[in-house]
């Protein structure tokens, strides 16, 4: 393994001492005096008219305080969504339900047991209607999911075609020429990228506490986006932005599912205002898939046209993505995010078209990778199929079609977006030339000699993250719908305290990414102050600067850069103060070991304590200098960042049963500079587990009537420790040029790189049996069936 650390190094995490001793504080751990508890009445039907709701018996039950229906909350309007294309969600079903598990009524009671008892006693008279579940059926528009919409296809994202008019002509000409030479191969496959349930181990939870004495709402929520939630609540209830404080304490995993504003967050806020008591809702696991967004859910046909010696002439993707019934935060924007990487790392002309289709199912939105795993899956699967068709090594095909390194930085993808930095050939070769990769090949060959079906899968990826440039705010990369003025800029505040400890306040919303550790490393390193003396706080909108939250692998590249620049500002001012005290030039001041020193005169120094004392006694400062020693920075990068990498997997299939096992997994990721190798590797491990799990285990299945058949962890199996191997990670380092840290982001790379790598390996294992593709997940029955189909 090779790693390069330029900025920090691996230190034990700041977050851990509380979490390993059971002292971490998650939303459900918070108890406010007088708290009431919520349970929802949920629809058993995917599509039904609500004839009546009778809560009279339930209202009489022990401990019941209130029961609300759509009549009580209709005046608040629909749930706000940042990209509001499609039908927005009513806070409670209003006359009709559009997906199984939709909330119909809300019960508030003295404790959660009593609330659930009463919810079970609410009588709802439903008139079931035909549910549209199949995405192709929905796209045919034979029946409408929402009568008021003109089409079930809410929007179609199209990129290309093949660049521009000139590009189309050139591509057509090249294809015609190749045809004349009889040097043309076309490979086309329809493939599913199945629906997933994000399944953070902490179910979502929210507490709203309205105090009409102060006229202030305090909301505790397990959210990745506290500021956006505060804005949404303020806007929904007509409150001033500074009348709503959102606190996101420890958040037990997010993966995009907590990158959303939820109806339950509005409803507990409403109930708290009505009742004058704190109101708490904690999702049960069983209702979570009906209440918290799902992800993926695409079906698309990928087509490659190329020459017999591996020059790809055109790549096309044409498909549909399932949006579910209601549009939430970024729902229809997720496939759009896929277009960014639609042509991957390659220079070949690309035409990309995905229709966003509504169905009578739970809403989909951002799940780890969000559009990019889907895009890369289709591209890399069809490229693998093409390489096999022309009997050429996939790595060779890649090298032949990669955007050349000489085009970087600033290469432009055929699909139209501009990259930051890239070195795709170097990265791929680092993997394929490695001892680890050679070992995979020899293990495969040895196993095959023994008659075993072992396959080696390879894939590479580029992704886009680090959102983002403020110029993209018009494309939905902002929180303007929630009333925030913000583009997705980063922000950070650095304050030197009287004892020369440092407080860093950031606008992110981490859920396990270790920001308290990484940001402390960044700031301590700049100020020459001991890491142990730097405390990082986040997740309280009342005290933090304007914040965007944590998602899209953006935090280090954008907010990290902001905190870094704030530290530089503080340092520059401290240098002037130190220079004044030491009667030296500010240019000669250096910081280390908790003090400022004059370069070349080691005996001339002043401690941070003395500097900060001066800062708060303005008469001790240089003429005209403002008092205080803290700084805030907002950072907006010139471009997003574009991490990339190459992965390889070794998979064994038992052809008699279809049982598929992942034996080895090797990565060569490139996320630019690395602050903490420990944390970066941890992010890759977790990302891999989720991508591999999509390939092998997870599948959110609806029946024809729209019932979710996989709403428990028994039916929706997450991988256990026994299902996964240890991972073998390496990296190349190509620093980004769009932020001062040179970092790119790593939260999603593992997921984006892995699903197709595993499927490519399974196809490799079964190619000799005639198997050309197996849709995910590679569960035994499906794999066994693919083998039978190939044999017949």
């Amino acid at each position, binding site marked *: 393994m090779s790693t390069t650390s330029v900025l920090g190094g691996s230190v034990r995490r700041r977050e851990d001492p509380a979490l390993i001793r059971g002292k971490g504080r998650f939303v459900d751990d918070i108890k406010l005096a007088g708290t009431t508890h919520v349970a929802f009445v949920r629809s058993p039907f995917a599509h039904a008219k609500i004839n009546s709701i009778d809560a009279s018996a339930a209202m009489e039950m022990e401990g019941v305080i209130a029961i609300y229906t759509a009549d009580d909350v209709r005046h608040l309007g629909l749930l706000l969504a940042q990209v509001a294309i499609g039908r927005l969600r009513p806070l409670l079903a209003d006359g009709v339900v559009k997906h199984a598990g939709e909330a119909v009524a809300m019960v508030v009671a003295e404790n959660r047991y009593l609330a659930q008892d009463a919810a079970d006693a609410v009588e709802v008279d439903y008139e079931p209607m035909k549910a549209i579940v199949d995405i192709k059926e929905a796209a045919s528009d034979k029946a409408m999911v929402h009568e008021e919409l003109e089409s079930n296809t809410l929007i179609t994202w199209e990129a290309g075609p093949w660049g521009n008019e000139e590009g189309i002509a050139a591509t057509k000409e090249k294809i015609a020429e190749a045809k004349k030479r009889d040097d043309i191969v076309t490979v086309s496959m329809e493939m599913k990228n199945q629906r997933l349930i994000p399944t953070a181990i902490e*179910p979502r939870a929210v507490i709203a506490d309205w105090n009409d004495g102060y006229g202030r709402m305090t909301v505790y929520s397990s959210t990745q986006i506290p500021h956006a939630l505060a804005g949404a609540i303020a806007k929904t209830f007509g409150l001033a932005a500074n009348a709503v404080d959102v606190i996101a304490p420890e958040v037990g995993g997010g993966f995009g599912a907590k990158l959303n504003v939820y109806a339950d967050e509005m409803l507990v806020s409403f109930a708290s205002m009505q009742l004058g008591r704190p109101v708490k809702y904690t999702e049960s*696991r069983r209702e979570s898939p009906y209440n918290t967004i799902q992800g993926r859910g695409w079906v698309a046909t990928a087509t490659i046209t190329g020459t017999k010696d591996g020059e790809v002439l055109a790549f096309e993707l044409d498909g549909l993505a399932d949006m579910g019934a209601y549009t939430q935060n970024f729902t229809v924007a997720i496939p759009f995010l896929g277009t960014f990487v639609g042509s991957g790392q390659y220079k070949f002309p690309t035409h990309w078209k995905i229709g966003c289709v509504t169905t009578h199912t739970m809403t989909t939105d951002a799940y780890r990778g969000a559009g990019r795993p889907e895009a890369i899956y289709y591209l890399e699967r069809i490229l693998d199929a093409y390489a096999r068709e022309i009997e050429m090594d996939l790595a060779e095909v890649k090298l032949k079609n990669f955007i050349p390194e000489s085009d970087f930085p600033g290469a432009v993808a055929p699909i139209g977006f501009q990259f930051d930095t890239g070195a795709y050939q170097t990265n791929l070769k680092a993997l394929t030339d490695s001892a680890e990769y050679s070992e995979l090949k020899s293990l495969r060959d040895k196993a095959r000699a023994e008659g075993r079906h072992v396959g080696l899968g390879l894939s590479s990826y580029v992704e886009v993250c680090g959102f983002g440039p403020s110029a993209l705010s018009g494309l939905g990369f902002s929180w303007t719908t929630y009333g925030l003025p913000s583009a997705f800029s980063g922000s950070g505040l650095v304050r030197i305290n009287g004892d020369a400890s440092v407080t860093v306040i950031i606008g992110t919303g981490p859920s396990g990414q270790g920001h308290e550790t990484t940001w402390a490393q960044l700031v301590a390193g700049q100020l020459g102050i001991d890491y142990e003396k730097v405390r990082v706080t986040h997740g309280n909108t009342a005290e933090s600067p304007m914040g965007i939250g944590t998602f899209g692998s953006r935090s280090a590249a954008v907010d990290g850069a902001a905190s870094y620049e704030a530290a530089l500002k503080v340092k520059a001012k401290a240098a002037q103060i130190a220079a004044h005290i030491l009667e030296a030039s500010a240019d000669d001041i250096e910081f280390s070991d908790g003090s400022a020193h004059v370069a070349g005169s080691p005996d001339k120094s002043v401690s941070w304590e003395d500097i900060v004392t001066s800062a708060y006694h303005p008469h001790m400062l240089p003429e005209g200098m403002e008092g205080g020693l803290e700084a805030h920075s907002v950072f907006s990068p010139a471009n997003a960042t574009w991490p990339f990498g190459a992965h390889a997997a070794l998979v064994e299939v038992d052809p008699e049963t279809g049982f598929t096992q992942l034996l080895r997994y090797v990565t060569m990721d490139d996320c630019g500079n690395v602050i903490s190798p420990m944390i970066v590797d941890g992010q890759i491990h977790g990302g891999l587990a989720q991508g591999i799990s999509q390939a092998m285990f997870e599948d959110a299945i609806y029946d024809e009537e729209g019932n979710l058949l996989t709403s428990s962890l028994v039916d929706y199996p997450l991988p256990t420790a026994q299902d996964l191997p240890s991972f073998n990670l390496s990296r190349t380092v190509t620093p980004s040029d769009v932020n001062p840290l040179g970092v790119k982001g790593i939260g999603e790379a593992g997921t984006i790189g892995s699903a197709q790598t595993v499927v490519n390996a399974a196809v490799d294992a079964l190619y000799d049996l005639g198997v050309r593709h197996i849709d995910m997940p590679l569960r035994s029955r499906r794999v066994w069936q693919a083998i039978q189909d190939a044999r017949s």
Partner: protein
Amino acid sequence: MTVNDRSVSGDIDPRTLLVHFIRENLNLTGTHIGCETSYCGACTVMFDGRTVKSCTVLAVAADGATITTIEGLAKNGQLHAVQEGFWERHGLQCGFCTPGMIMAAVGLLEENNNPSEDEIRHGIEGNLCRCTGYHNIVKAIEYAGAKLRGEEPPPAEWEVSA
């Protein structure tokens, strides 16, 4: 019952789950609820010396039992070797599954303080983690096993590669 060496009692609704009793009545919120179906293991506690999932045990069934939760694991301010291992080897990210995972690992190492990687993976199979891919959890338990055997733990991967 005795919880973390303290004798406790409470007057409760008979249907109260042990995990709710621990969290709500005793205010020991380190034991988490992830699925309420004994599948995820976030609620794992020690019950008379064995690990159980407290979301599917009625509190009344624990009458007279000796329970250890994550809060009772460190003794005299000294972290248990498994807690130390999770910290030293980045065995946690969001930390939500961590208390249950640590209790499961404690149970595993009490039975076998020198488990192979396969034995570790098998031993924690009843506890789900969504953040780490289990890679560093395995390393954390290897670290703790070495500590419990009085051996020097293997170096961290990032120390080897640095």
